[in-house]
């Protein structure tokens, strides 16, 4: 353990902790743009500078180990001046379109500019101009807004283990991009979007879908069994964005499905009314490819399964919409009839691993207690 003094307060941290770790432990606010506790130290933004008594130059607290007996100052007129200059420089090469930026209000750079009261910039000069747009379907990449904090590069490499992007070129032309500046082609986990401190990386799905007046609802991802915690951003009965908080089971990390796969909720295909069959089953039966079929031209993706156009496009052709009462009565009558004729074990229920535990409980109770059979299972086996 190492004990040091920060702004006059004593603090003890584990060996090989950085000064920033110690500062954070005391909950002293120090601005950072490139630091992330889960990622390797970077030391690029130079905002977290602190003074150490006896050392002539300020040091970056994120990349300096805390040592016994250190006397650290986190704020002084000199430090604040240096930080302000750093911010001015970053802003001198950053588009000033906060008005229409997706991240306004949720942007670390904007927040710091606000705290340091940077109204006008002493530095004009050349700004990067990147025109090329990235056509991947998930992640909008506006590299003019990139401040090269490198969190996306590190997260993609160190956490996701993919390395889809890296720094390229050097000097002022330094740019984070996929190889040969092609469109992003990766696992689309969106971890980079989650850590980006500015509006450089955003989800294309929530582009211009609102910045304010969201209701945030914490819930659990509906896909695989990991149980990632997600937060739904709701705007007028519509899920407009998904995010995940850092202090969750999944540490804020999600996969492409969890982060971007919520579009089905408001799909026009959703079933909205109870439906009762009107036509006999044979008519609506879809063409299943049998052996030795005639060969239509090979189209998108494959054949031999279910023809994509068969049902979802015309769900009503063999069914009629009914009221809930009608549907319930119909089901109850039919089930009662079958139970009477063949006994309860002629009825089976398949429950769902997609539904809540409560619903599963009710479903099996319904079958066991109401129908009177143990013929109840779900898809645990597939």
């Amino acid at each position: 353990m190492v004990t040091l003094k920060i702004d006059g307060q004593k603090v003890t941290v584990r060996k090989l902790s950085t000064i920033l770790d110690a500062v954070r432990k005391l909950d002293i606010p120090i601005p950072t743009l490139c630091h992330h506790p889960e990622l390797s130290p970077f030391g690029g933004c130079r905002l977290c500078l602190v003074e150490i008594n006896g050392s002539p130059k300020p040091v970056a607290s994120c990349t300096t180990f805390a040592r016994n007996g250190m006397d650290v100052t986190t704020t002084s007129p000199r430090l604040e001046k240096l930080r302000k200059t750093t911010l001015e420089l970053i802003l001198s090469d950053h588009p000033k379109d906060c008005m229409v930026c997706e991240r306004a209000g949720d942007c670390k750079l904007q927040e710091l500019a606000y705290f340091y009261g940077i109204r006008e910039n002493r530095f004009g000069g050349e700004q990067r101009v990147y025109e090329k747009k990235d056509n991947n379907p998930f992640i909008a990449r506006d590299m003019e807004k990139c401040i090269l904090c490198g969190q996306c590069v590190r997260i993609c490499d160190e956490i996701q283990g993919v390395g889809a992007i890296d720094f390229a070129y050097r000097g002022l032309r330094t740019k984070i991009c996929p190889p040969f500046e092609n469109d992003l082609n990766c696992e689309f986990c969106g971890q980079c979007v989650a850590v980006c401190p500015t509006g450089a990386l955003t989800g294309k799905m929530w582009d211009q879908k609102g910045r304010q007046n969201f209701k945030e609802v914490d819930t659990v991802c509906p896909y695989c069994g990991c149980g990632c915690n997600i937060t739904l951003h709701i705007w007028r009965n519509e899920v407009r964005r998904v995010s995940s908080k850092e202090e969750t089971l999944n540490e804020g990390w999600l996969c492409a499905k969890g982060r971007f796969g919520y579009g089905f909720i408001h799909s026009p295909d959703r079933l909205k009314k109870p439906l009762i069959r009107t036509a006999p089953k044979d008519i609506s039966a879809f063409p299943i490819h049998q052996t030795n079929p005639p060969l239509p031209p090979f189209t998108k993706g494959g054949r031999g399964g279910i023809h994509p156009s068969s049902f979802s496009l015309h769900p009503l052709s063999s069914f009629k919409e009914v009221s809930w009462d009608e549907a319930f009565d119909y089901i109850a009558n039919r089930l009662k009839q079958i139970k009477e004729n063949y006994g309860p074990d002629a009825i089976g229920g398949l429950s769902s691993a997609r539904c809540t535990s409560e619903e599963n409980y009710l479903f099996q109770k319904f079958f066991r207690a109401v129908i009177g059979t143990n013929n109840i299972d779900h898809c645990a086996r597939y």
Partner: protein
Amino acid sequence: MDKDILIKVCTGTGGVASGSKEVLETFKGTISSAGIAASFSERCSAQRVGCRGFCAQDVLVDVIINGEKTTYKHVKPDMVGKIFTEHILNGTPVAEWIVDKDYHTFHQKQTKVVLSHCGEIDPEDIHAYRAVDGYKAAKMALTSMSSQEIVNIVKNSNLRGRGGAGFPTGLKWELGLRIASDIKYVICNGDEGDPGAFMDRSVMEGDPHAVIEGMIICAKATESHHGYIYVRAEYPLAVKRLQMAIEQCYEAGFLGKNTFGSGFDFDLKIFQGAGAFVCGEATALMRSIEGKRGMPTPKLWRSAEKGLWDRPTVLNNVETFANIPRIILRGADWFMRLGTERSGGTKVISLSGKVKNTGLIEVPLGVTLREIVYEIGGGIEGGKSFKALQTGGPSGGCIPEELLDTEVDYESLALAGSIMGSGGMVVLDETSCMVNTAKFFLEFTQSESCGKCTPCRIGTKRMLEILERITTGRGKEGDLELLEELGHYIRATSLCGLGMTAPNPVLSTLRYFRDEYEQHIRNKKCPAAVCRDLITYSILEAVCTGCGACKRVCPADAIRGVRKKPHRINTELCVKCGTCFDACKFKAITKV
């Protein structure tokens, strides 16, 4: 004839560029050609040697007859015949081609330690090196000295890193020795990137074995078994010679398993850089060997603890390593006494710019800058007046006339606002504009910035933009203060050495030549008449003969005039290219 004749031809990069290969071939051809007795050619040989430093007079050729040396300058292949018949066969040197006084004064003031073999021995031949006590020190170190003993000698010698920062070498090695690890590395930094510096190149080309020997000794001292020499890609000849030297060493058993039969293993490889100045920075260099972008990494750990591939690593530059064998052989005391109290030994310096004798020199630490410029360098070219001495490359600064008595050592130069750096010195005269010079260096560091940290990536760019403003007549009040503020800011906040020192050329010129900046801003004038936008070309009617030479060469068609009558420059059309200025034989064109 009863003569021992040796002909030495300089084949450094400078020599080769001036045609030394052809000169050497011609000598060889002449010796072996018909008509000369076989017995004679046995005792007469022409050989290549490394750079002796005085590149301005290349191709330099030594003709040594029975130990008596005569040196010829500017030798061309067609001069070989005459030298051969008159001097070698008939014993009468060709007086008009012999080097003059300059050549000797250039060498007199020098103390050659690191460069002692350069220009003397064939760098491509391990036997030549062994003939001058080569690998004696390494053998001693490996077979009869303990690691700690070697470290102690190096510590006592007061040798400090010649790469620029001047960290005591012995201390570095001691740290490397003390940290236990199954794998450790020794790296030689041959990424001499400073524009205007070629010390390391000359050593690698002229005496590659000395570098390797120094590394072997370091490996033993720090108990490392793996070494890399990082050479920049721009030095193909150095790579070739080092490669040859390494192969010879493996053959001789000086590298590889059981070196010198001592049971100690040491493998050495060359790694060729790929063209990035920042790779001279230790952490960036190591990332580069790892195959990554050469972006400096934060120094959470010292290299001696976690360097290359996170293993303990000792990194020194070429010149530092080349000093080692001499220190081991001749003792720490001898070396220490050569220099000043705080730093032992000599420093190799590349002297260039507007000075008569440009080239590579080696001086004991402690000589004054004045001695270097006026005695070794022979003063300013073309009778112009001295303005400043730029030392330390893009990380250094400019030293004005009044500080020329500063001694060459790490501390004194720092006090004068510059740095020792790797040892490049460029002399600037009255025709050099200090603002332009500062801009030149900043342009360089800006384009070589790795782009990682804010101050270096954007800060230097903004400084450069201010300088561009000033040199094009758009400077405004407050610019200098802003430059200074940015300079100090970048110095305080940058991640690595490159960034921290990038403002030095600007800050030091601002300190000593502020008036020149102010002239640019207030009067929109460049006193040295360098900054294109601030100068006006005009023709002195009284001097102009109306020959029309200027009119013919003007690319902008800006000069008008009738033959034999004074011409005129239309300043509206003039693009200030200076072609007419160079073309006028009568000095009738002025630029103000």
